[in-house]
């Protein structure tokens, strides 16, 4: 199976490269508040079961699995969460939302975290980098969807 359910895993290269310091001063309350405000979700509802990560079609390539994004957001680790590729790989497929036993709307949380970057006028994709054949052949729904989700 491509997406193994590994509740303890953060991601392999993360474990290799990083140690994460957590103490009173690392908790960015403003980050937590902004994510909750934009998503209208209570991030404390998440009980870290990992159903979202196990359901996610894009999880294999994420720096942090969806469960870990929830965990680190609960801990206010703004830089770690915003520095990971997770929210930029999320395809807004809503599989996690459909399956979360705690009723957490994780796609909304992913969007809130994306917007905290995009609203600083930083793009996550550069339309000029697309290959000509892709521009020729890709449906408008892909272009509009991608640029809506990943550009400022």
């Amino acid at each position: 199976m491509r997406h193994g359910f590994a509740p303890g895993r953060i991601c392999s290269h993360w474990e290799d490269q990083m140690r994460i310091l957590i103490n009173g001063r690392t908790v960015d309350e403003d980050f937590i508040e902004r994510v909750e405000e934009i998503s209208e979700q209570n991030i404390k509802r998440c009980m870290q079961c990992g159903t979202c990560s196990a359901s996610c079609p894009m999880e294999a390539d994420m720096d942090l699995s969806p469960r870990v994004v929830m965990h680190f957001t609960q801990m206010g680790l703004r830089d770690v969460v915003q520095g990971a590729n997770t929210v930029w790989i999320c395809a807004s497929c809503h599989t996690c939302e459909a399956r979360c036993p705690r009723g957490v709307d994780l796609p909304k949380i992913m969007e809130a975290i994306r917007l905290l970057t995009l609203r600083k006028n930083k793009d996550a994709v550069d339309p000029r980098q697309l290959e000509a054949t892709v521009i020729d052949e890709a449906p408008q729904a892909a272009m509009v969807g991608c640029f809506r989700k990943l550009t400022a």
Partner: protein
Amino acid sequence: MKVSYYPGCTLKTKARNLEDTAIGALAVLGVELVELPRWNCCGAVTSLAQDDLLHMLAPVRDLIRAKEQGSDKLVTICSMCYNTLARANLLMRNDAEKRDALNRFMDEEPDYAGEVEVIHLLNFIRDEVGWDKLRAAVRRPLTGLRVAPYYGCTLVRPAEVAIEPAVDATVFEKFIEALGAQLVHNPGAFDCCGSYQILSHPKQALAASAELLGKAKNKGADVLALSCPLCDYNLGKRQNELVADHGLESKLPTIYFTQLLAVALGLDSSLCHFELNHEGTRSLLEERNLISTVAV
């Protein structure tokens, strides 16, 4: 019967095969799809931010056009348009504060409160045509063609806009059976193809696509039926890459559900624009004598 119809951008260009077969087939079933005047792009994806009303304007304007036409129903075919319009409609129905803000912002438009119902064409056929009438209209039953339904994400998630509850959905299955085809149970029917990430993270989107196509292929499907031009791009048009680089063992043609309908109703296959499909779709139907061989 006439019903308001929202085509969306992709159906007018890269998915003409989806639009032309829908209009042609519905006409045979006695339904005229009346295109909205002055429609605009729905935005393709819903804004999930609760403080972002601006991106609701586009889909709500389309709903207002339908109300202006005097319709209480708006039919869409593209799965992404369906999802975006249906979610915007629910917001206008259920959230008084945001509805007021949007109506005040668009003070040149008549007020809107979700009066129109957004309906996907599959549900429209189920409710307004009915399986018995559809079965009776079939002139060229798709006998022996093993068809796997693929709903994808946006027809079934989130639950409040699902065309039928995902786990128990049968509308696509009943549609396939009504056309005389052999239904193949598809364990990947609700999986995600990677969606718009095909442009920014193609490797990951193609991996997701290969995995779900493999599930239908393993069940012995001849063809995968779908309703979304973006899914068809990832699963159909990019399929050679899935076989070459992502472990898909063999090809599986893809087809829009409206093309299956057009073929079963005996419509001229030139209407189907198979040149816009996966390369194996036309030859599969020719082999099964479901369409006549044409020189291209």
